[in-house]
């Protein structure tokens, strides 16, 4: 099936005068793991709650499995939610919590028992049936919350920062388990997080949001390697961002004039005189002893930081900003205090239009 399983079309959400979701268009495919990623307050939770039915969109269309759901109450929608704070019913045992969805549908007792057993096995919580949620650890509660949401066999599972309250190690482990679960069951996951690393590891596609707008919707690799705006480049992973003006454009080669000197990058659709940014990942940034016509940004080597597998070098720009680059080995040609010039190979840097254009582009994009 190629129809999207969840469709948002021109969705608007206001809280009073606060415009929280702006003309959102989003197609979520069958069986994909889609992550809404963005800083706090950008409207991720609100978007998810509109799909679940806890909030009404002020305008626009929301479809689930080809059916419009704007008028439907949450209990009538075929999606289930895993809440950030777990929201397990404290007065019920683990068994009754997981069985809840089926109990409501008045499924025969034997069948409920079978399904609950199956679900608990799936989340590796067999044997905890008689416990109350109070007597579970955070990670265990989360597993039960997932089992409870999955027992209804939803086609879409909405997860709002489900791992937010767990410690780092458990979070990493649960990330892998969730991904495995999603693949095994073939269910569409719509996942909300503000942790970009989490989004990168788990998602098929990531929608990077800011101020109620989806700036870029792409695979993790595309988003990492080809951010379409300054915000995405900055938000995803570490990046060195140089701001400047395209001085000369020859084919795809763009010579960018920054306040600190020239830097050359490659890209299409740039015009001379246009304000633009260049994003260079620390692993792709390098330095030269001598400046060239294309690369003349002068820096001073400030520090080397050993980070386990890589060594991070900190460079100071004349205006005081910092540039980072990482290598597996210590560069024998440079030492602290040296003056060097920034350099980046063709294809390793990303040319980005100045923000206003990038945002309107993202708006047009579907």
């Amino acid at each position, binding site marked *: 099936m190629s129809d999207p399983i969840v469709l948002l079309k021109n969705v608007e959400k206001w809280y009073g005068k606060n415009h929280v979701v702006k003309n959102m268009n989003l197609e979520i495919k069958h069986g994909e793991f889609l992550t809404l990623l963005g800083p706090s307050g950008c409207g991720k939770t609100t978007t998810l709650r509109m799909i*679940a*039915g*806890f909030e009404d969109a002020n305008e626009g269309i929301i479809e689930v499995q080809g059916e419009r759901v704007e008028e439907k*109450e*949450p*209990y009538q929608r075929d*999606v*289930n*939610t895993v*809440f950030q*704070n777990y*929201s*397990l*019913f*404290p*007065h019920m045992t683990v068994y009754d919590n997981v069985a*809840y*969805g089926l109990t*409501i*549908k008045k499924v025969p007792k034997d069948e409920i028992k079978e399904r609950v057993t199956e679900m608990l096995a799936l989340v590796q919580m067999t044997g905890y049936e008689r416990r109350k949620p109070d007597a579970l650890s955070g990670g265990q509660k989360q597993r039960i919350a997932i089992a*409870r*949401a999955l027992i*209804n066999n939803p086609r879409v599972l909405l997860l709002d920062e489900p791992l937010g309250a767990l410690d780092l190690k458990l979070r990493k482990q649960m990330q892998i388990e969730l991904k495995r679960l999603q693949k095994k069951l073939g269910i569409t996951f719509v996942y909300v997080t503000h942790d970009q690393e989490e989004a990168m590891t788990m998602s098929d596609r990531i929608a990077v949001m800011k101020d109620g707008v989806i700036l870029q919707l792409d695979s993790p690799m595309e988003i990492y390697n080809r951010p379409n705006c300054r915000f995405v480049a900055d938000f995803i992973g570490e990046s060195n961002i140089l701001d400047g003006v395209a001085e000369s454009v020859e084919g795809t080669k763009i010579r960018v004039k920054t306040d600190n000197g020239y830097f050359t990058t490659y890209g299409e659709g740039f015009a001379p005189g246009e304000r633009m940014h260049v994003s260079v990942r620390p692993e792709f940034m390098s330095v030269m002893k001598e400046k060239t016509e294309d690369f003349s940004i002068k820096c001073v080597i400030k520090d080397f930081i050993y980070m386990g597998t890589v060594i991070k070098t900190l460079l100071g720009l004349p205006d005081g900003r910092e540039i980072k680059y990482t290598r597996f080995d210590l560069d024998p040609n440079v030492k602290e205090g040296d003056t060097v010039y920034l350099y980046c190979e063709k294809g390793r840097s990303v040319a980005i239009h100045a923000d206003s254009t990038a945002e309107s582009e993202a708006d047009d994009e579907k």
Partner: protein
Amino acid sequence: MKSKKKKSRLPFLAQAGPVSAWMILFVTIPMLFIIFISFMSRGTFGGIIYEPSIKPYETLMDPVYFKVILKSFEVAIITTVSCLILGYPFAYYIAKKPPETASRLIMLLMIPFWTNSLMRLNAWMLLFQTNGPVNNLLISLNLISEPVTFIYTDGLVLLGLITNFLPFAVLPMYASIEKLQKSLLEASADLGAKPSVTFRKVTLPLTFPGIFSAVILTFIPALGTYTITDMLGGGKVLYIGNIIKNQFGATRNWPLGAALAVLLLLITALLIFIYTRFSKLDDMEVL
């Protein structure tokens, strides 16, 4: 075993020293004294003769008293149930309001409670007099042709009791509804439960501690009240509270009054025992 118990008890008593001294002086001793005189005999002209006797308790077995107790229970139960039925939706409504609105609504609820109770009861009497505003209104609306006698009826007593105890029912229920997490209700709806099912399976059980506190806070005082029943009921129908008052007052049968008081005490203790059994201690903050 015994010495161990003593050991752990002493520091606790020491800790609660001033409070326990106060409690012993003003609560425990008077209570023990009541229990004590309930086992004594009555003097010919009132007062107490310090001769052990179970006469007061035998008197309690008299069908007359049994009927009074039954009647008091009936009225207390009706009051409690009415307070719950009227109070729960109101408490729910307040709890869903933003905090400032909620505290204002609670204020409104409490204002009558802060006025002098005699004044409040007299106000009810005035309103419901034979040619009082209520009768006049009903006649002018052509709902009745002759004034109705409200004064000294069970109905007016109930009205007085319910209005008096409603705040005590609303407050603990409000506290527990307010504590209820919205996301639990959402989780229930998310899993396919209609609002009515969510209410039955999630809201009601989770607010049960508040409901039980409301029961205790209305039932026990409603069972023992005498001012309301005395004034609005005109002493025509007897309730436990009135009899106790009479035994200590006009009738001067202190041991019998004490025995009745002990009976009330036992009922109260039983209810609180049930309460602590059903709800965990940390839910008791509303009491």
